[in-house]
């Protein structure tokens, strides 16, 4: 899922300062699961902001809502009439949701979150990055453990010389070395030989963000001829 953090409340208050009528619109997908921008967080943030604004003598009227998936127009459409009555929308979705709303509605769309990474739940309250969206996946070679996202140096032929005796990363002390994990996993799968007998080829990073903004086209799915 996409993992995000709520911005510091001070920053959110500053972003909202010019507005008196705002819709707080959450998203019920990834950011709800990572407890940053779902319906629940909309309620909490709205209550907090109302309290702060009332206390500072500049009250604000907040409408609350949460789209099933803010990155698709069809789920935002039902909020259209409410949005028309606002001075701005504070989006608690990931950056995609914010971009999407901004494309569709002609009023300021403000971000409440800092969108961070593609991650997994480690346990309740902890999320870890596991894929960096490089666009050319090599997980079949690495036992399902991604060295691009999980090795601090994005090494393709690890581990580096700095790996600690206890299997933690040289750079991130409390982080297991991704390459130690990969080797252990391949050993379990009986596939270590395969890794040792090949050298991972230099990666073509043009499919990553380094190649500029990305776009996906599926000709067979296009509706127009």
């Amino acid at each position, binding site marked *: 899922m996409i993992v995000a953090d709520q911005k*510091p*409340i*001070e920053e959110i208050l500053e972003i909202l300062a010019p507005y008196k009528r705002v819709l707080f619109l959450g998203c019920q997908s990834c950011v709800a699961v990572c407890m940053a921008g779902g319906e*629940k967080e909309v*309620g*909490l943030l709205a*209550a*907090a902001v*109302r*309290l*702060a604004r*009332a*206390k*500072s003598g500049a*009250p604000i*009227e907040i409408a609350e809502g949460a789209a099933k998936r803010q990155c698709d127009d069809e789920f935002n459409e039902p909020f259209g009439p409410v949005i028309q009555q606002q001075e701005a929308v504070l989006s608690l979705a990931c950056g995609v949701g914010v971009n999407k709303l901004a494309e569709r509605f002609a009023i300021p769309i403000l971000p409440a979150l800092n969108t961070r990474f593609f991650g997994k739940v480690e346990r309740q309250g902890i999320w870890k990055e596991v894929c960096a969206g490089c666009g050319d996946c090599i997980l079949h070679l690495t036992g399902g453990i991604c060295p691009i996202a999980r090795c601090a140096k994005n090494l393709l032929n690890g581990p580096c010389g700095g790996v600690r005796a206890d299997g933690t990363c040289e750079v991130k002390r409390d982080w297991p070395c991704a390459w130690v994990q990969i080797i252990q996993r391949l050993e379990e799968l009986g596939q270590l030989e395969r890794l040792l007998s090949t050298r991972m080829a230099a990666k073509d990073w043009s499919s990553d963000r380094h190649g500029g903004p990305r776009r996906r086209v599926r000709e067979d799915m296009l509706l127009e001829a």
Partner: protein
Amino acid sequence: MNNGFESKIVAFCCHYCAFAAADLAGVLRLKYPPDLRIIRLPCTGKLDTLFLLKAFEKGADGVLVAGCLEGSCHFISGNLRAKKRVLAVKNLLERLGIEKERLEFFNLSSAQGERFAQIAREMTERIAKLGPLRSSGRCPYDRG
């Protein structure tokens, strides 16, 4: 004691300790200020951060949460979790420009009727010193 206003203090009390202690305080005919509004929870572990913020939003000047003594929670760790949530909201209140002392977490057992009365006095005095949360009294959003 009340500094010229009768404060509104919402007390979220665990059924197994603080709520029973409040009951005991009554049975013992102990006197404590009438500012408290008690809301019974099955366990403070049921406490939702939104309850705390909503209480303030709807006009409370102070909020207290009272759970079992540490190690004695009927549901093992509900009171420890609640305490963490209260600490998080205290931190948030401060950043919102609201005195964090308006919110407090207490531990007590069902046998401590006197302690309950004392907590009620302590909290009422504290809120009296801080004054009302809103000078206008009524929350501008409270249309109900």
